[in-house]
């Protein structure tokens, strides 16, 4: 027999409610106090810096912790501590988890090499990863925690939405933060403590346009995600004027959402218009399905795209993706020595898996930090590191992506145009 709750009984003894409230409140306070007395810290701190930072933190604004100089001799103009641990806030799960994991792989490979090569003298670098689960709120709270911790630098996630929220925190807390992907404007404009090792996609488009012109493309349609800032910006702001300047007619742009499951209607329209080329600016799950749908609808023209294309996202389309081209910041078959070494080392480290551009970006981001550390003069602190990173970006360096040059804190690259042979192989497009 079901027992219905008696509404009257709960309020017969208000004192009991108060008792419970007091108990809960005091246990909460107890937990907080317990948390304080234990040496729990987010983002492992270098052992030498622990003492210095606790005494340095005052008031309501976390002061930039200064790391006590150890006597370890290192290369470069700074005396770096024996070990440096930095926090990486990355999208390891969630919608862009695959991108985050690839980036992480690249970063880990770089750190191993940096430590083994003695680039920082006897200093050992290590990274602590925190997962944002591709949620902005999580990313922001992780950022606040990392900024208040002893981490002398921070690696940011790949998602623009998270990065634009984190960049201001990096600036106000004066902690150098290195992002990859995160193509939105607000990341770099937030201030000079923010660095980015992925050139905004807008810079790759000229090469793509030249390719299209060279192949007699006179009209295009675009299919893109309206709820991803980078693809939206590309399709609505960057590409149209470039097409116009190259005398290519943009017939129509179709915006879908990352949640759109079936694009039959869009595909029918595009196939009906039959432009010379179709640009798909689509996040990963959507690229192959879009290509398959277009081909099934009878579209035979050229299909092009951006960084969401790659072996992983094209394999489902198989032979139907033969001949598609896209711009990317990474060419795995480039003969640039650093790239060749990176590809070989990555395959060796990850059981033969080939690296993608996200891994290359992560790799170079870690190296940027290393070069920044090397170029730091004086005792290592967040501010001196920021100066070191600025020096490193002005000089540029050779990375997995190629010869890297920066404009301010932002990477600049002309990119590559790649093509797919329908059988799992990527090669430069001619």
């Amino acid at each position, binding site marked *: 027999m*079901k*027992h*219905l*709750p008696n509404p009257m009984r709960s309020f017969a003894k208000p004192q009991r409610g108060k008792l419970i409230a007091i108990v809960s409140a005091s246990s909460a306070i107890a937990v907080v106090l317990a948390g304080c007395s234990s040496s729990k810290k987010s983002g492992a701190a270098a052992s030498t810096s622990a003492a210095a930072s606790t005494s340095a933190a005052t008031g309501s604004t976390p002061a930039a912790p200064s790391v006590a100089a150890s006597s370890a001799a290192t290369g470069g103009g700074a005396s770096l501590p024996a070990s440096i641990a930095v926090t990486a806030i990355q999208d390891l*799960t*969630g*919608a*862009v*988890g*695959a*991108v*985050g*994991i690839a980036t992480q792989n690249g970063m880990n490979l770089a750190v191993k090499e940096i430590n083994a090569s003695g680039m920082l003298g006897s200093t050992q670098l290590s990274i602590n990863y925190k997962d944002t689960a591709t949620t902005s709120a999580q990313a922001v709270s992780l950022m606040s925690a990392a900024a208040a911790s002893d981490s002398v630098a921070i690696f940011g996630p790949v998602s623009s939405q998270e990065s634009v929220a984190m960049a201001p925190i990096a600036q106000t807390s004066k902690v150098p933060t290195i992002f990859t992907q995160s193509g939105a404007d607000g990341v770099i404009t937030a201030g000079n403590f923010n660095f980015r090792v992925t050139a905004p996609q807008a810079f790759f488009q000229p090469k793509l346009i030249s390719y299209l012109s060279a192949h007699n493309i006179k009209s295009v349609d675009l299919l893109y995600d*309206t709820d991803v800032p980078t693809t939206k910006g590309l399709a609505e702001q960057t590409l149209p004027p470039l097409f116009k300047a190259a005398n290519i007619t943009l017939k129509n742009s*179709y*915006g879908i*959402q990352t*949640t*759109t*499951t*079936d694009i*039959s*209607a*869009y595909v*029918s*329209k595009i196939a*009906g218009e039959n432009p010379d080329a179709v640009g798909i600016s689509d996040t*990963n*799950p*959507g690229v*192959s*399905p879009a290509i*398959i*749908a277009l081909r*099934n*609808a*009878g579209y035979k023209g050229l299909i092009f795209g951006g960084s969401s294309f790659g072996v*992983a*996202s094209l*394999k*489902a*389309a*198989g032979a139907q993706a033969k001949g598609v081209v896209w711009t990317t910041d990474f060419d795995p078959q480039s003969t640039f020595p650093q790239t060749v070494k990176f590809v070989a080392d990555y395959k060796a480290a990850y059981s033969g898996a080939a690296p993608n551009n996200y891994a290359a970006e992560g790799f170079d981001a870690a190296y940027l930090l290393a070069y920044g550390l090397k170029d730091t003069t004086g005792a290592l602190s967040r501010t001196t590191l920021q100066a070191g990173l600025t020096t490193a970006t002005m000089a540029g360096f050779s990375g997995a992506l190629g010869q890297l040059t920066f404009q301010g804190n932002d990477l600049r690259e002309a990119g590559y145009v790649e093509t797919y042979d329908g059988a799992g192989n990527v090669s430069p497009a001619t």
Partner: protein
Amino acid sequence: MLQAIADSLSLGSVYVLFALGLSLSWSVLNLLNLAYGAQFMLGAYFAYLVGTHWHHSLLLVLPVVVVIVAATSVLADNLVFRHLRRQAGTPVESELSMLVASIGLAAVAVTLVQHATAGESEFVPQTVFKVRTLHFGGLFRMTNMQLIMLIVTVVLTVVLAVVVKWSRFGRAMRGVAVDPATCELLGVNSNRLFSTTIAISGAMAGLAGVLLAIHLSTVDANMGDPLLTKAFAIIIIGGVGSIAGAAVGGYLLAFAETFTVVYGPANYKDAIAFIIILIVLLVRPTGLFARKRWERS
């Protein structure tokens, strides 16, 4: 124009095929199973796994996967839902606890698959089923899978509607949802009935998962979510308690969306879905075909 109609039918079949199992569970069992999207995704995922490792055709893969997903439903019911129903004080509490529990279960399934696929999207290999385009006299085209989905959807809708409305099993199902105690007196084992119905719902999730994975050429840990929200729209528009209503609602929504894309401001396609729901709920809250009027007012 004809192509737009063909695309609407295709899109509608995607929606309705997905929504049928959910509609069954909601109308008949009062269970708003938010794990349904995850079960659908499991169907797609197992289709990918079985297809990639054992290279069999659809005829073999489909029943295997359907049984697997139906089993997950029965498991969830035995371990969780049954006990929640017993504990609840009022029907609303029972529904709410099952709803919340289903959220937890969904999180488990999605996380495990996400980990297993390392966040990448996969696809069902062509050895399971080869998608081909069929041309109908130059007037319009559909792929063979789209045609299959359309036929399966229509057949299933009819069968389900008939069974729920007219068969003894269907009457028992509906009775259990309204008044389990009386049904027990009449000799109906309500727990077993619930299990059976939820197994059917799970089987349909699995079926939808396999077919849609092939049609959409993608298998992804989060693929259930957008369809789940669409399914809400369809069931509300069509009216709870009516399987046929859900089907009509689904095709109606698909037509609205497709024609918006083809002839109107394409960016507002999704907003249209939800605005339709709100309008239906406010103006005709019983939905277009609902039978259980008393529950709404």
